């Protein structure tokens, strides 16, 4: 038939979609770029792996119940265990900082999301909170040194808490605001329609709805603060025995001890530094993991 004859003479122009017709140069560039991307990922994994491995292997060697309990030897030259005071110090200093920064941060977030919204003042606070997260921790340490240590007249654990609280505040504000934003408006309207005042609506309806997200964000901020070193060194001084009193006398924390011991040429000091590093990482990872679990299991889903 004419129809079949016609179709047989005309070769259909099929585009070649296999990519085989690519010029060699383009293909090589593409492969090189893909390889480069994989290499970048590898470059990030290597230091993390190496650091984890060294800390676990060298810190694990000195780890013992005694190490977690005993006082710190008051000479770097001496060998033997002891990080107890630093562990206690880290926990109470960071705990006190959380007690100050988390409530204040949450209320600040409430202002930004429930009252301020897009008002100029709220925008300024939002931008400044982001800027404040970028303020170097050493500057925060100097600020607390001038604003508290010089006024009170001595270094103390509480001064360290103040510095850490200043570092945590903007992080808590910004992460809590994100979580409050996810609370559906219908919830607020329902509560207001039932006759609740705005403050009751916020405290009994909006906050509970967002509490898991706020908790996980705050825990991440706590984990970050627990590892801060520079402000602690400047404002809390150093001690070798436990000092549970935050307001009187110098105190110490794990990061500060790692810093002091790391640069010593003595094996005993270096061992203690590795042990302290392992303890610190375990504390930080613990907080991070708990935060992740809370975030994954109870969080509001973004709509």
């Amino acid at each position: 038939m004419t129809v079949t004859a016609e179709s047989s003479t005309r070769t259909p122009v099929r585009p070649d979609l296999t990519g085989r017709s690519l010029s060699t140069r383009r293909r090589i560039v593409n492969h090189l770029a893909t390889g480069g991307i994989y290499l970048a990922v590898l470059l990030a994994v290597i230091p993390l792996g190496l650091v984890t491995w060294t800390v676990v292997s060298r810190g694990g060697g000195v780890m013992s119940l005694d190490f977690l309990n005993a006082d710190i030897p008051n000479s770097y030259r001496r060998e033997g265990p002891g990080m107890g005071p630093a562990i206690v110090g880290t926990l109470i200093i960071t705990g006190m900082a959380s007690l100050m920064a988390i409530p204040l941060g949450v209320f600040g977030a409430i202002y930004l999301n429930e009252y301020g919204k897009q008002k100029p003042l709220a925008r300024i606070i939002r931008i400044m909170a982001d800027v404040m997260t970028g303020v170097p921790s050493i500057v925060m340490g100097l600020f607390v040194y001038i604003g508290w240590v010089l006024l009170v007249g001595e270094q103390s654990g509480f001064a360290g808490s103040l510095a850490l609280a200043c570092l945590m505040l903007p992080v808590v504000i910004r992460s809590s605001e994100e979580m409050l934003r996810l609370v559906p408006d219908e919830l607020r309207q329902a509560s207001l329609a039932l006759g609740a005042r705005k403050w009751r609506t916020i405290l009994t309806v909006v906050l509970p709805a967002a509490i898991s997200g706020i908790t996980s964000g705050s825990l991440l901020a706590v984990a970050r603060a627990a590892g801060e070193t520079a402000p602690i060194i400047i404002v809390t001084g150093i001690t070798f025995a436990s000092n549970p009193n935050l307001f009187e006398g110098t105190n110490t924390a794990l990061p500060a001890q790692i810093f002091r011991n790391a640069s010593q040429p003595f094996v005993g000091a270096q061992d203690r530094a590795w042990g302290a590093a392992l303890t610190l990482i375990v504390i930080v990872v613990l907080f991070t993991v708990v935060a992740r679990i809370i975030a994954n299991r109870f969080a509001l889903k973004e709509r």
Partner: protein
Amino acid sequence: MTITENKPDTRPTLTPQRGGLLADRAFSWWTLGTGLLVLAILALILVTTVKEAWPAFAEMGFRYVTERTWDPNPAQGDAVFGALSFMYGTAVSSLIALLIAVPVSIGIALFITELAHRRLRGTAITVIDLLAAVPSVVFGLWGILVLAPALVPFYQWLHDVLGGVPVLGSLFGEAASGRNFMTAGLILAIMVTPIITSICREVFGTVPQADKDAALALGATRWEMIRGAVFPHSFGGIVGAVMLGLGRAMGETIAVALVIGGATNISANLFEPGNTMAAVIVQQFGESTGTFTAALIGLGVVLFAMTVAINLTAQAIVRRAEARMRGGVA
């Protein structure tokens, strides 16, 4: 009729029962107060640090930023506080960090947004999060006790190979120990990678799928698609991310204090020890008094002003870039 049947009045009272207007007002003022705390702290930092640092600024004048000698306890004569060599150290170590971290971060962000399967993507994000969670002092500890000694032979090899080349040779001089500008830059690179990666990832996420599909449909390879569709669209965001990374690198204290060697030194040789503004403060603050303390706090003022300026600019750039992209999608 049923309609007119008399029912008990069930209309709700619409006046709020508990917590009056006063409580509402008080609550909103209280939240406003906590919000304003951020502004108050930033303002207080500026005021108090400048006030405390003033004696040093007044004594040194403009020489504070042009003088390269830093001699707080001279054998004779007056103490000299010139911050130039620490500014140089801050600039050099941050620059090295950015040169390494920026390509790596962009690569990881591309891997997460364009290349990886869902499982691998999750793993990559976790790795970056963990990298951000490791306290800086731990990187410092690892840097001084493991990385720095291990790098000395490598530095020496670099010097042997490149030392004779005219310009490069001055950068890669003799390496006496592993504690120098280069090691500090490497450690800083590890520490700023997470922040640059996470912002780049967000920015790449705003590139419209249609742009990417169009590029691929026109026969572009994946790399050509990235170069033609992803990069132009997210250029502003990348610049902002790099600046935020720079701010972090300049302010990082402890890790640098451990690995940079602690010398007042301006040298093109990257393998010589030096110091940065942040590191000097933490190293010398303990034994300082009087004008010496003021001079150290002055370094904090300079650092504060620079990081705030960099952060403000970076935030503005990222915000503008993101807003423009969202608008483009809609």
